[in-house]
């Protein structure tokens, strides 16, 4: 019997993978992809809750998250472009002028 718990567990796992990706990858673009993965995981949560609650707010929310994800991707990639132009790198560990 497929329950909401299956979906929630799956989305939790995907979310965690996204978090771990953010924490371990050095490539900005990959990090951004990890964040996308996290957002996707959240979307899955929303949709499953919406389904099991019988309430479409979750769908609206996911719709908005997609818009946000698109916007973030646009700005984020623009930032990466600018970074690359300045530094010739997308390695976040090398982006540490500002510290202490």
């Amino acid at each position, binding site marked *: 019997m497929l329950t909401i718990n299956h979906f929630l567990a799956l989305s939790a796992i995907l979310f965690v993978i996204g*978090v771990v990706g*953010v*924490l371990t990858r050095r490539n900005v673009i990959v990090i951004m992809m990890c964040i996308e993965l996290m957002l996707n995981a959240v979307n899955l949560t929303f949709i499953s809750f919406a389904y099991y609650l019988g309430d479409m707010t979750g769908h609206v929310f996911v719709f908005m998250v997609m818009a946000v994800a698109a916007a973030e991707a646009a700005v984020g990639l623009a930032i990466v472009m600018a970074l690359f132009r300045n530094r010739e790198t997308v390695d*976040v560990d090398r982006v*540490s*002028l*500002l*510290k*202490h």
Partner: protein
Amino acid sequence: MLGLENIWLVPILPLIGAIVNGLFGKFMSKSSVTLWAVGSTGLSFFIAVIAFLNLLSLDARDRVFEKILFTWIQAGSFTAQAGIQIDPLSAIFLLIVTGVGFLIHVYSIGYMSHEEGYARYFAYLNLFMFSMLLLILGNNFLLMFIGWEGVGLCSYLLIGYYYEKDSASNAGKKAFVMNRIGDFGFLLAIMWIFWTFGSIDYTTVFPSASQVLPAGGFAVTGITLLLFLGATGKSAQIPLYTWLPDAMEGPTPVSALIHAATMVTAGVYMVTRCNALFNLAPTSMIVVALIGAATALFAATMGLYQNDIKRVLAYSTVSQLGYMFLACGVGAYVAAVFHVMTHAFFKACLFLGSGSVIHGMSGEQDMRQMGGLKSKMPITHMTMLISALAISGIPIFAGFFSKDEILLSAFLGHTKGNLVYWILATVAAAVTAFYMFRLYYMTFSGELRAEDQHVRDHVHESPNVMTVPLIILAFGAAFAGFLGLPIIEGGHALNNFLGPVFHTPGAPEHPHASLGLELFLMGFSVSVAVLGILVARHFYYVRPEAATEMAAKGGFIKTVYTTLQNKYYIDEIYDVVIVKPVVSFSRSFLWKIFDVKIVDGFVNSIASFVTDLSSLLRKSQTGMVRNYALAMALGGVFFVGLWILALGN
């Protein structure tokens, strides 16, 4: 007009003199300075005499006059009036102070004529007169305390008169601090008295003393011992006497006035004034008598081998003050006051005489440089001889009567151990006679030993302005004793006059001795004194080289000699035992370690702890974005865990 009503003028006049000379003396001519200074003192003496006569004219029981000028301090139930009180005791002191004071002012005109700070000197001197008179005339303890500290201040200022000399300023400071130690006791005593009696007025405290305080109780013993601590400071008794010999750094008239005739007797005045309290405290009386007797002998021995003419006199003063306290301690207050009076004459005379000698010797104070001044300074010689005889206790001279009365009282006294005091005092009398005549012979007989040709050429008798006071004082030293003729019953004028003051409850009975015993004791003390004189004559007149030979021999005698010359090393002992440890404890522990390292260090270490923490925490800000993300994740885990584990609803 000049009755007792105006007695307040007596202290005020010198104060005016002091203010005028203090503020404007620099801009005034020498003669007007003199006029203000000496004039005010003279006027004050004049009023004092009239007041005294007025007092005499009153019935013996009514001889207390009190006048409140204004309320000085009033705080809650505490009141200290600025009021004047005169009774026979203060009247005697009043006369001594104004009289001797006036003479010394006159003498100073001559002695100080070449000094730079002439006006300053007289301002201080007048201020001293004011303080001393306030001390005597004040109607309560606090006013006495003002005068008490005031005279201490003037003593400080005058000792340090030659402030460019380190020894002078050191001596001044020493005097002040030693006095302060005494004042510490006095101040506490005043507080204790206030909280016991609810007042500090003499007229309230003394009459009710025997009712309020149980005789021999803790309170009265404590109060009197604290008062006596004050007295030991001011009157240079063991253990606070060391300042007085050093005080000789001041100009000689100052030594005569302050450190011989008046200020140092303030302690005696205080003890006699508080006789009502002391009588209730037998233990304190023993302490007073013992300290007095011990000081009398101890100081006398230190005077034996001093070569500075003024130092000899200084130790002699300490010793004589010891006699006075001995008298107080055995309850012979009249004898004490009597001795104060005679001592004022002969000691002032001796000091002024020595001043005259010093003046004549162009400032030389070392007796080894003197000799043979008999012919060159005849008046000085005569007056000093009379005074030396007086202090040695040779009959008909003043000192004989007063000292004899003390010895007699000691012998007969009710106080425990009175015979011990008598022996100490008698030995001291012999020693006194010896060193006084040692001084006399070294100064006046033989040949002039001065090495400096300039000094030799300029030895001269002092001007009249200096010799006249000498003569007057010598006259007093010779004849003042007749005020207290002991033998003629009823002839003891002083006793009759002062009697009412000392007839307080608990006062010891006046000792009665048979005429024979009295005469025997008299004879004994005189012969002891004569012995002392003869020994001195042997060593310093007949065979002047004998003393040096003996000293040169070495061994025990030499040790005694150097010990005496170094005053038993008491100053050095004080220095090593008290002064140095306190200073180095304060400097190397309290300041450099406790204050800087511990108190301040604690505060600074808090600051450095915070900054250390800061630099540690700063390191967490690595600049690595992934570390930041990790921190966020861990923070999240922490809070989730906290919520679930600790708070879970």
